[in-house]
């Protein structure tokens, strides 16, 4: 229980990648930090159904949590660690081209920071979380501080050899999963169930790697089951109350901090600011620009499924490893093309506990059953991830009609692809098919429709308060003691997975906040 009159140095809302890295850094720097997490307390080692099999459940769905263990039951109430508990841990640095895309090809928005500014913070985060990968010396995917890479699967090698005939690079995946043990965490044991909660914490999660160790400072308070629904502001346009209720009892409460950090994972951060209306900010908190919720730029994906024909009929082997072991980094950015930006390809990350593709194999009877058995060792996913540019039809808002289980408005995601986005999408599909064909793959779905993944944008970072929500240190232009630290602040999405950059921004923002507290400027 928090005493209502306690004034923390910093109140952090959300405990995922951004909230975890930031709060741990601040606590180590001596700030008095309260983290409010909407979901329950989680014990990573015992609460997840990491090793369950589908037939243990009549519905054949494996629930995320073990019976009686709450968690991950809604967008606002995931649990300590947030989505880092279930992520696939791909950890890529953005490149100078990603930060300065407009400078590079004339479209979208540049970041107010560049790679040289961010590099030391990537270094720090990689040391803290542990990232395995190969030193590839690519101009567009900067190397980091790596643990040894994990060998590619035989199926990856087949893709690599096929892609090579087209001049397309295939590299070792870079993941925040340990390929060798540290003093406190074991190395990965390759059970293949990474996205079901890593119960040994070989895979990074913000609870076990960042926040629990920071409790030793005595400066960090983790408070779960606390759903924040409003940030109230004073006459001086400073956040003076963080209003929340208990997830179970619904009892209302208030937390106070000199500084407040919103880190609720993109759409939920936007929604919280949009819900925090006041006479000073009638269109939502920190929204004098009218840009809050706009510039929603999730990754657009083309999800192929295929069978690698050289593996059809081979004996079933266990090569799940830690899901994907390889990656196709961006290569189109340096080629002549009819659109801005580029794409990367993540592949071979299926978990072999589920065989959902079986229903789509043609035929029936014994030949059908034999075909599935033969194809089981040959199946793989192959998904292009592209950068989307901002457009007026892609934004986050609050549903005026639907509320969630807590009576709070639901965040809605609207997205539409522009002609440029579609040109890129179609070219990405063409390259995916070409690589698969060059690798002797039989493609199950040659023409997948675009879907979204990795929510990005909505609180754009920029130097101009008229066109952006937060400044280059993630501080709201309108509200001097309010920060936003998650992928909602990204001015451009890159095609690379966002989490490592969220953490690098978080640790950099923590330094900034600590120095302000020290100088008494907060």
């Amino acid at each position, binding site marked *: 229980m928090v005493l209502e009159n306690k004034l923390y140095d910093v109140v952090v809302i959300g405990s995922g990648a951004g909230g975890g890295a930031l709060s741990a850094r601040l606590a180590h720097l001596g700030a008095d930090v309260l983290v409010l997490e909407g979901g329950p307390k989680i014990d990573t080692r015992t609460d997840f159904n990491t090793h369950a099999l589908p*037939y243990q459940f009549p519905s054949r769905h494996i629930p995320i949590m073990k019976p009686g263990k709450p968690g991950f039951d809604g967008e606002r109430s995931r649990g300590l660690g947030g989505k880092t508990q279930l992520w696939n841990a791909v950890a890529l640095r953005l490149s100078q081209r990603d930060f300065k895309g407009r400078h590079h090809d004339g479209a979208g928005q540049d970041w107010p920071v560049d790679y040289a500014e961010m590099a030391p913070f990537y270094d720090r985060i990689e040391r803290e979380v542990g990232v395995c990968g190969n030193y590839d010396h690519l101009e567009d995917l900067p190397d980091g501080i790596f643990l040894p890479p994990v060998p*590619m699967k035989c199926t990856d090698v087949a893709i690599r050899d096929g892609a090579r005939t087209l001049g397309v690079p295939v590299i070792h995946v870079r993941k925040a999963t340990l390929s060798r043990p540290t003093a406190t965490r074991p190395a990965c044991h390759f*059970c293949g169930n990474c*996205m079901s909660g890593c119960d040994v914490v070989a895979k990074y999660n913000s609870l076990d790697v960042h926040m629990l160790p920071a409790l030793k400072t005595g400066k960090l308070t983790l408070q779960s089951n606390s759903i924040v629904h409003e940030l109230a502001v004073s006459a001086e346009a400073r956040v003076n109350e963080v209003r929340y209720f208990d997830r179970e009892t619904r009892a209302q409460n208030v937390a106070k901090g000199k500084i407040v950090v919103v880190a609720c994972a993109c759409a939920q951060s936007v929604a919280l600011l949009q819900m925090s209306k006041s006479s000073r900010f009638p269109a939502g908190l920190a929204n004098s620009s009218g840009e809050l919720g706009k510039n929603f730029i999730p990754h657009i994906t083309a999800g192929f499924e295929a069978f690698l024909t050289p593996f059809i009929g081979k004996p079933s082997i266990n090569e799940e490893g830690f899901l994907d072991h390889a990656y196709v980094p961006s290569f189109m950015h340096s080629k002549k093309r009819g659109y801005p930006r580029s794409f990367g390809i993540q592949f071979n990350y299926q978990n072999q506990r589920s065989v959902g593709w079986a229903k789509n194999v043609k035929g029936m009877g014994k030949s059908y059953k034999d075909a599935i*058995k033969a194809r089981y060792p040959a199946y793989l996913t192959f998904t292009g991830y592209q950068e989307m540019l901002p457009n007026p039809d892609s934004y986050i808002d609050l549903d005026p009609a639907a509320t969630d289980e807590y009576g709070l408005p639901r965040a809605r995601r609207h997205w539409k692809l522009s002609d440029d986005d579609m040109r890129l999408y179609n070219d990405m599909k063409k390259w995916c098919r070409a690589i698969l064909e060059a690798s002797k793959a039989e493609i199950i779905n040659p023409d997948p429709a675009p879907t979204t993944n990795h929510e990005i944008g909505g609180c754009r970072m920029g130097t101009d308060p008229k066109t952006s929500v937060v400044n280059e240190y993630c501080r709201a232009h309108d509200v001097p003691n309010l920060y936003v630290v998650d992928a909602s602040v990204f001015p451009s999405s890159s095609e690379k997975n966002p989490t490592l950059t969220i953490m690098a921004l978080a640790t950099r923002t923590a330094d900034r906040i600590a120095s302000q507290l020290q100088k008494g400027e907060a």
Partner: protein
Amino acid sequence: MSTYSSDRRSLLKIFGSIGATCAYPFASDELYAQTTAATPEMASHFFNKTDFAVISRLADLIVPGAIRAGVPEYIDMVIARNAEQQAVAADGLHWLAAKNFTQLDEAAQYAILEPLCETADSGDLRARNVQFFALIKSLTADGYYTSRTGLLDELHYHGNTPHAGYPACPEH
């Protein structure tokens, strides 16, 4: 602007309760969405005895061994909580009853089902009886390959075991 947008997402859903999302572990967000769907565990007594026998026979023709793996009970449980699927199943069962399906020998049963299977495989789901076949095939595949028999005995799933390291691919 292209026709692809958030509004189209609902059109991409397909038949079957486990569906493409299960085969397709995108990222934590997707995984999260698929496994938090409410799944009340229900007793498997939706179909009456006659209809259950027909469903069982269909499942075993689509995947030999499906009855022994408990697939009909799974199909019953899924359809019991989906009104749309119940309507498709009712029409399909009615259509098969008119053909005296259960009285026919295996070859004759195959002769009825194979054209439906071919049409369903071609992606043409306009006809009601094809929808019915596609539904039962989809649920049979999901039920069988999530069963112990299907996943372990048939496919020899070896995952979920700890390894000291990950060996490099020996052939390369």
